[in-house]
């Protein structure tokens, strides 16, 4: 077990190094640079820009810049954000919790809902309930994420103005609210982005859970469970469910990265200033330190969840645990 874990950790480290290196190279290869973006005025001469480039070390060869970045990142120094005019560390410390809040609520809801819906469907495969839920899920599954986010925005913020269109909280009145009022305001702002993310990922989770369960229902030990005197529902919920949950744990680790990507659209549409929102703006501004550090943090999170999921599967499945 210890050797297995050490191997997995090494593998995880490799993934993080690969992803951040790739990001570093790609963003530097993109046309333009942070100085060009920041000092765009016609009165600034190219000589002045070059002076600034030299001051930030942007004139050095790419491998040198890369090694310098690695060395400082390893010491926890993420550099200074060109576009936000403050340390990258501050930017991340502010936006990471926002993204974690949004996606953890959405993940909680979508797994709860997805597993539940899959179970309801699998209890009577091909029954009326299974077929109707299946149609709704297929629709949600096929819809593009940005389109769904926009539709939700139009429907519930514009046509039926039940919820605010975006932001973390009300920009004007928030400071004057009571603590309860502030909490309610924050929750109100969370509703639409969470709803969108939940709808998007519930579909694939439920479809996955349903097929995992249906496959399990045909096994011999399900017949044994029934022959013992369990009702169909008990057999499904006690015997089949636990077995069908194993692939879903793996799905969880696969969902986290897609969440980070899917969250970019949702954060953009609902102006939620989290990691995705920040990264998009940082890329536009060629804010090298912010982009690379943002990717570094996200890839570490993804790799850690994958690792945790593997450990969870091993804990839940006795066959994996012992081999």
């Amino acid at each position: 077990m210890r050797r297995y874990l050490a191997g997995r950790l090494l593998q995880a480290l490799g993934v993080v190094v690969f992803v951040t290196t790739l990001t570093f190279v790609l963003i530097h290869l993109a046309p333009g640079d942070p100085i060009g973006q920041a000092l765009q005025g016609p009165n600034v001469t190219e000589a002045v820009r070059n002076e600034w480039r030299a001051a930030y070390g942007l004139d050095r060869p790419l491998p040198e810049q890369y090694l310098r970045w690695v060395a400082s990142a390893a010491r926890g120094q993420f550099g200074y954000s060109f576009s936000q005019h403050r340390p990258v560390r501050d930017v991340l410390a502010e936006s990471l919790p926002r993204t974690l809040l949004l996606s953890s609520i959405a993940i909680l809801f979508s797994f709860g809902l997805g597993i539940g819906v899959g179970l309801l469907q699998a209890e009577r495969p091909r029954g009326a309930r299974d077929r109707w839920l299946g149609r709704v899920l297929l629709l949600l599954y096929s819809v593009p994420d940005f389109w769904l986010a926009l539709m939700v925005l139009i429907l519930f913020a514009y046509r039926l103005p039940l919820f605010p269109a975006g932001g973390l909280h009300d920009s004007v009145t928030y400071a004057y609210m009571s603590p309860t009022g502030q909490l309610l305001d924050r929750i109100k702002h969370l509703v639409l982005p969470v709803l969108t993310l939940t709808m998007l990922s519930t579909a694939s989770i439920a479809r996955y859970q349903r097929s995992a369960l249906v496959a399990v229902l045909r096994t011999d030990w399900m017949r044994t469970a029934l022959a013992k005197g369990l009702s169909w529902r008990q057999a499904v919920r006690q015997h089949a469910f636990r077995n069908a949950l194993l692939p879903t744990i793996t799905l969880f680790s696969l969902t986290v990265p897609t969440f980070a990507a899917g969250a970019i659209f949702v954060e953009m549409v609902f102006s939620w200033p989290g990691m995705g929102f920040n990264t998009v703006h940082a890329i536009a501004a060629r804010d090298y330190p912010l982009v690379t550090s943002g990717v570094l943090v996200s890839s570490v999170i993804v790799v850690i969840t994958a690792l945790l999921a593997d450990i969870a599967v091993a804990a839940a499945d006795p066959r994996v645990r012992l081999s």
Partner: protein
Amino acid sequence: MTPPLLEIDNLRTWFYTDSGVARSVDGVSMRVDAGETLGVVGESGCGKSVTALSILRLIRAPGRIEPGSAIRFEGKDLLTLAEADIRHVRGNRIAMVFQEPMTALNPVFTVGDQIAEVARIHTDMSRKEAAAKAVEMLRLVGIPDPERRATEYPHQLSGGMRQRIVIAMALVMNPALLIADEPTTALDVTIQAQILELLADLTRRLGTSILLITHDLGVVAENCTRVIVMYAGEVVEEATTSDLFRHAHHPYTEGLLGAMPRVGGHAERLATIPGTVPAPTNWPAGCRFRERCEYAWERCEQEHPPLYQIGEGHVSRCHLAVEPERRANRHVPIAAQVGAGAA
């Protein structure tokens, strides 16, 4: 005379498949008396397993037990019981042992939990009492170090051990009837004998009746008092074991006996029955064994044979019962005539 423990009356279990209605069990009647071991033999696809599953109503769609069938057990018709009441019978009064010990146990629960579950379903035992019961059952079926084994998972045990677990699970509630569906087919020969001995020993001590389904006449000879031979969804012969081995009547039974290796027999090739079982969606008219039979004549084509009484407790679904002189008329069966079936 005491009524039989189990009485199956005209059981018809049909499967409504895309390629037609498969009449897998087509009018089967049999009885199991208290304390006896009844053997049911036949080739794969003859309907013996479906009969077993029908008793506990474990037939799933597209299968259906047709109206007009009845399965009486301890004074009740199992087929008309409410869902909650049949569950009270399953695992409690009638238990099952399945063919594949490798797949009959849930891989993610310990064997102790799986045995204890039966007690938890049918009694109000606490978790702890049920766990103790599970250990006791493991000891009963001869598993060494039962306390430790109870905490192990199915994949940690050998096939023979798993089958002992399945038997332990079946006997928790001390059922009146044990249905064993090919309990030793998937096991090594030496383990087979052990498992059968264990079953015989336990059920004798507990007074359990057994419905033993098998395709192995050797197993029948050693374990059963009475035998039912099934073919193509029907009972074709029923007799006491000694009667059957000495005076088999139905040509199919004769074929099965001829296909059995014997110690001390001549070292000739084993006899085989030519052809295969017809498809259950399309049983032939007349006698269903006709095309594979060495004696078949016109009557077998025209008239579906009833179960004729041959002797006391001995019936056979063969027209030879009324035209015994035809037995002298052996010929090559249609199924064995080269090119005959091709047209």
